[in-house]
């Protein structure tokens, strides 16, 4: 009887020891591969012609097919020794998952970079490699690189891949049917909305405020640059010379609040996929958009579509567009195959990739200096605005969303609130300014 207990205790103890040992040894292996073993492995691989595996972390799970069928085969054709796997996760979980993978040492070799602070934090924590001297970086302008450099501008850590442009996509058949023309000024824009509303067959604007980010991104950041004069206003906020309670920001909210009359009934509970479906099913005439919608809309909509840029206040005014740096690619410094990863990154900086990526994913416009021609007419329309208008990026992205309360989060909530008419534009702007002043020194004087 006693012996049985001893046995059992011994067994449990043994189990524990085994468990402890096995976890120890697996740790060891990862460490060696990550740190010491890396170099030798690559050289060995190169020498013997062995195939090196690269894994790309990304949130673009919508693009899986394009990477697997077009982009990666093109790269592998030139580099038979490198095998690339595209391993995306859901957009909403990407940041969190990537963070834990990087900390746990299980992340892939190449990291798709979110713009600004999310990537800067990773770089500061040593999870993104410095690629300032990478061959190919000279193909990108300063603005294109602005989202993936240190604050002092000396170190770069991601190769810019694409930007997205805001504007409005419209149902061209509906416009013909109702007999309205594409608007260029704000008065014309609201006249068109009135005409569509009077006609009654279509909801004028396919948008809801349930998810909040559409209100901020497709609303505020879409039409706003015309009010705060693009980069002038954006840098003004960062330097503290402009405040979010200034007239141009309040006016943006005032105009945004007018949209409510033209949105579908019950828009307060209409989510992003709902409004996408409403538009592609032909239920609405105008969709406040980002260019990334083009791919999906081409696939789903069975009517002719066109696009127009955010309307200016008066005819002849300079137009400003949000040409937002959205996506880039960096390298995991813990990668065991850093040479191969660098080869891939240089290829991403090449004109071949620029053209292939932009054309496989219409709506994601290359940031490189190479001129890329777009086959898709809708995408070409968006791209053409770069020639006519001044480009800027979303004003809340650089530096201003670093503190608590988070400006971007508040901007979502406030934009939705203003459209829902539960706060006035002035009150909404005041909330944002108060939040910013709470932690951002340049906004605190005066």
């Amino acid at each position, binding site marked *: 009887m006693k012996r049985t207990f001893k046995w059992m205790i011994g067994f449990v103890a043994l189990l524990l020891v085994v468990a402890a040992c096995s976890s120890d040894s697996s740790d060891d292996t990862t460490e060696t591969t990550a740190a010491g073993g890396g170099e030798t492995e690559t050289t060995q691989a190169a020498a013997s012609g062995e195939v090196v595996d690269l894994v790309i972390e990304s949130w673009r799970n919508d693009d899986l097919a394009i990477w697997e069928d077009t982009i990666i085969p093109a790269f592998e054709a030139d580099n038979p020794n490198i095998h690339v796997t595209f391993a995306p996760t859901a957009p909403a979980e990407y*940041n969190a998952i990537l963070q834990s993978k990087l900390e746990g040492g299980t992340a892939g070799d190449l990291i798709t970079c979110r713009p600004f602070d*999310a990537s800067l934090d990773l770089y500061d924590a040593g999870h993104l490699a410095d690629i300032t001297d990478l061959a190919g970086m000279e193909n990108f302008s300063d603005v294109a690189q602005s989202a993936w450099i240190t604050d002092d501008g000396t170190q770069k850590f991601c190769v810019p891949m694409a930007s997205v442009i805001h504007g409005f996509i419209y149902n061209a058949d509906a416009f013909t049917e109702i007999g309205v023309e594409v608007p260029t000024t704000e008065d014309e824009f609201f006249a068109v909305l009135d005409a569509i509303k009077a006609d009654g067959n279509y909801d004028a604007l396919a948008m*809801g405020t349930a998810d909040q980010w559409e209100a901020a991104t497709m609303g505020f950041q879409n039409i706003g640059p015309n009010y705060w004069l693009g980069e002038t206003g954006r840098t003004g906020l960062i330097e503290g010379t402009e405040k979010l309670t200034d007239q141009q920001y309040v006016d943006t909210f005032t105009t945004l609040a007018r949209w409510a009359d033209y949105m579908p009934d*019950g828009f307060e509970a209409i989510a992003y996929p709902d409004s996408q479906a409403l538009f592609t099913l032909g239920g609405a005439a105008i969709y406040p958009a980002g260019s990334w919608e083009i791919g999906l809309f081409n696939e789903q909509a069975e009517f002719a579509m066109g696009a127009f840029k955010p309307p200016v206040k008066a005819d002849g005014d300079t137009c400003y567009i949000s040409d937002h740096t959205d996506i880039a690619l960096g390298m995991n410094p813990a990668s065991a195959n850093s040479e191969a990863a660098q080869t891939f990154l240089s290829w991403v900086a090449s004109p071949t990739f620029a053209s292939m990526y932009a054309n496989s994913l219409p709506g994601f416009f290359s940031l490189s200096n190479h001129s890329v021609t777009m086959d898709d007419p809708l995408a070409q329309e968006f791209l053409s605005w770069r020639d006519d208008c001044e480009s800027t990026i979303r004003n809340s992205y650089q530096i201003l*969303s*670093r503190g608590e309360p988070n400006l971007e*989060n508040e901007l*979502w909530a406030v934009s939705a609130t203003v459209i829902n008419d539960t706060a006035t534009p002035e009150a909404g702007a005041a909330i944002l300014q108060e939040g910013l002043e709470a*932690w951002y020194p340049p906004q605190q004087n005066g």
Partner: protein
Amino acid sequence: MTSASTNTDVVGGTSTKRWRFPRHVAVFLAPALLLYTVFMVYPLLDSLRLSLYSDEGVFVGLANLRELLPGGSLSSSFWNALGNNLVFFGFHFLVQNPVGLLLAVLLTQHLLKRGKGTYRTLIFSPTVLSVVIVGFIWQLILSPLWGVVSTPLLGLTSTALPTLSLMSVWQFVGIPMMFFYAVLVGIPEDLIEAARVDGANGWKIFWKIIFPLLLPMLGIISIITYIANLNAFDLIYSVQGALAGPEFSTDIMGTLFYRSFFGFQLQSGSTAMGATVATAMFIVILLGVLVYLFGWAKRVETYEL
């Protein structure tokens, strides 16, 4: 065999032999205790510890927790979330319990000739569904575009939280129903008959006999609901997203924790603040449980039947 004989050893041992440590108890407890310690107790304590450090790993004492108190940077978000959590629990307490009880009473009455089992299963079945599915279905039902109501119930600050609470009640009402049902079927028929002979009507029987017998169970259900509600996250996240709109009106501590710990869009995650919110949740839940233990469980009389 073995354990029975050891038992006698232990029980009888005090007088005849020297008391020996009942080693089999340790062996039987070990697996559960070990797993529980490794996967529950240790992470819990470590998260409490993390809340005392800054993100850089510097010990800061209670400074993080102070950010949640009035004047701190997370104060308004935290108190808003806590308030919403309590409203969320309030709806469960005030709606789920009576409805659950009503359903249980209906099931034990002889009104239903057939299909009691079917009803019981049907009412219980949403409980086993994934919250994401429940959220998605209700979102479609309540969608002003495709659904049955034109009022944007989930989009107005005044109605969003009550709507979500009721969705959750709809999903989980089966649990109190089952608990109450178990108590109700356990009440001996002769008690009721005796009361009836004494001239009590149905109303009086319910309040004087059945209800007191249900009270201990009501307490258990309430505390389970309280813990689940204060820890809630998934329903809000799947229906309203991590920003818990409109205007944070459905933001609860779970979603606040998610944003603080993992970050959201441009907001960077912070281990320290995440752990701090988690600690605050732990404290709030602990307080609730203490109130239950000392304010309720000790006072409510349990009857042996």
